[in-house]
Structure formats: structure tokens, C-alpha cells
């Protein structure tokens, strides 16, 4: 199992992501800087969270136009697993690798708290470690997590099991349509999610509910 973590200026959750992948897979991921136009041969590409380019223009907009993202798109088209968390999710949307957009939180406030997530589709490479409908805890920390898609896109996503995580038990922190917290593409190899599973993988974090995502993913790509 080989993983790469993409790095852009302003991302700040890359070290957490690298630590989570290293801890669970026993192997440190490669890191790839934004200016690279090719990627090493890996099974998993992760775009971590943060505030690439200061969220200028729109969150993720500038980062999504960097050379490395063309390489990520090429690898995604080959079927390589791609996961974007928080700003990484925003970048995947801006790059057109996932449908829809993430807008300013309905409250207009930055939210940093724990939410409950329902595993809305456990039949993906990313969620196979969970039971269908399982409720897990997960931290969120974002200002622009308000997922939006037009009615047609939303119907297609819902119809094909594209919604993999939903905010549960009234914990939607951002006004996201249909309580959407994470989605996967039709092929099932590109996941974007706002919550941070990498921050809940060992007891010192206060819980381990994020661990099954990495165990399922890293185990299967081994």
C-alpha cells in the first residue's frame, strides 16, 4: 500500500494526515508539492485540510488550478483512490473531480466542534470499515462546509449512493443540503468529506471513530 499526501501553501492538516496514514498503515506516505506535474506510482492520493492560498477567490479555487491537480485528475481517471478532507474536499470540487460546491456556512461562523455522522453508504472502499447506517463521532473545523448542488445533481448523487456521510442527530453544523458531509464519485474512487477522520484515530484523540475509514482503505489498497 503506497500513499501520497499533496501539499499546497496554506494547508495545515497535512501533518495530521501523514501521522494517521503512517500510524495505521505502518508506512509513511510520500509528500508531493503543488508544482509537481507528475505523481509517484501510488494506490492512494490524499489532499488534506487547511486554507490553501488563504481561501482567496473561493475556498480551494486557486489550489485546484495548480499543476499537481492535473496529475491527480489523471490518476483518478486511471482508478487510483483519491480522498480530500475539508479543504481537500473543496479543492476536489473546484477541480471538477466531484460534483457540487461548498459555500459559506449558513451561520456565517467558523465551526470547530464534534458532530455525529451517519454512514449513508458503507459499500465503498472508503467506508467498508463501518456498518451501514452506523453513527460515528467526528470533528469538523471549517468556514465553508455548506454543500450545495443543483436538484438534478443532487437526485443523481442520492440515487447512486454518492452520499456516503451525512450529519446525524441534528448536528449539521453548516446548513449543508440533505445534511451532506461527504460524497463519492460514480466510480467510487474519489471521496470528499468535510469532517476530519484523521483527528479521531487513537484514544489520546478522545476516540477512534475515524480509524475504520483508514483501516478499510489502507487494508484494501495493500
Amino acid at each position, binding site marked *: 500500500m503506497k500513499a501520497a499526501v499533496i501539499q499546497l501553501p496554506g494547508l495545515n492538516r497535512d501533518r495530521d494526515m501523514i501521522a494517521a496514514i503512517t500510524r495505521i498503515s505502518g508506512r509513511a506516505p510520500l509528500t508531493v508539492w503543488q508544482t509537481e506535474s507528475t505523481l509517484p506510482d501510488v494506490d492512494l492520493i490524499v489532499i488534506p485540510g487547511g486554507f490553501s492560498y488563504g481561501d482567496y477567490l473561493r475556498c480551494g479555487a486557486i489550489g485546484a488550478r495548480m499543476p499537481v491537480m492535473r496529475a491527480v485528475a489523471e490518476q483518478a481517471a486511471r482508478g487510483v483512490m483519491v480522498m480530500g478532507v475539508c479543504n481537500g474536499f473543496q479543492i476536489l470540487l473546484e477541480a471538477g473531480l466531484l460534483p457540487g*460546491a461548498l459555500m*459559506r456556512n449558513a451561520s456565517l461562523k467558523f465551526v470547530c466542534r464534534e458532530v455525529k455522522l451517519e454512514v449513508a453508504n458503507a459499500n465503498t472502499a472508503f467506508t467498508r470499515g463501518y456498518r451501514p447506517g452506523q453513527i460515528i463521532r467526528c470533528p469538523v473545523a471549517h468556514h465553508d462546509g455548506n454543500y450545495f448542488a443543483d436538484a438534478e445533481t443532487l437526485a443523481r448523487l442520492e440515487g447512486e449512493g454518492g452520499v456516503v456521510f451525512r450529519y446525524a442527530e441534528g448536528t449539521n453544523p453548516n446548513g449543508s443540503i440533505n445534511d451532506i458531509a461527504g460524497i463519492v464519485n460514480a466510480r467510487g474512487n474519489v471521496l470528499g468529506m468535510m469532517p476530519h477522520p484523521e483527528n479521531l484515530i487513537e484514544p489520546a484523540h478522545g476516540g477512534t471513530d475515524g480509524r475504520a475509514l483508514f483501516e478499510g482503505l489502507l487494508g484494501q489498497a495493500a
Partner: protein
Amino acid sequence: MIKARVTVTLKNGVLDPQGKAIEGALKGLNFAGVGSVRQGKVFDIELETADRTRAQADLKEMCERLLANTVIEDYSISIAEGPQKPQDHET
């Protein structure tokens, strides 16, 4: 040189929480008759060309590829009228 202004606004039907907050603040300042407020972005762009047709095409592509997220935003382009050089004519 051509000076252009690109205006990006949220599509109708897309919730604009920032516009709503501004609307509430304007009403709080006792401005009578304030209806809906929508927030947008303005880009003033200078282009080193005199070819307005080409500029229009380039600006449209800039909007599609970066300035606007067409999932949620619309854009409009206006090119400033100004003294025209002899070779600068509409085609």
C-alpha cells in the same frame, strides 16, 4: 490596452447567507424599503491588447476556468468604451 470589469454573482436560488446578513444590517440602519440583498465580486482586469473580440473571448474563458464557479455563480463581462485606435474595430 483594454479595461474590463467582470462581475460574479450567485445564481438565483442559491442561498446567500452573507447577502442575508447585509440585508439585515441595512434594515437595522433603518433604510426604508430594502428588499433582497445579494453579495457578489468584481474584478477589474487590464488586458494588453486592442482586440476587443479577442478580449471578450479571453475574459469568458477566464470566467469559466477560474473567476466564477459556474455550479453556483453567474458572471457578466463589460469592456470599457474608450478612444479606439484605428486597428481597434468591432468585427
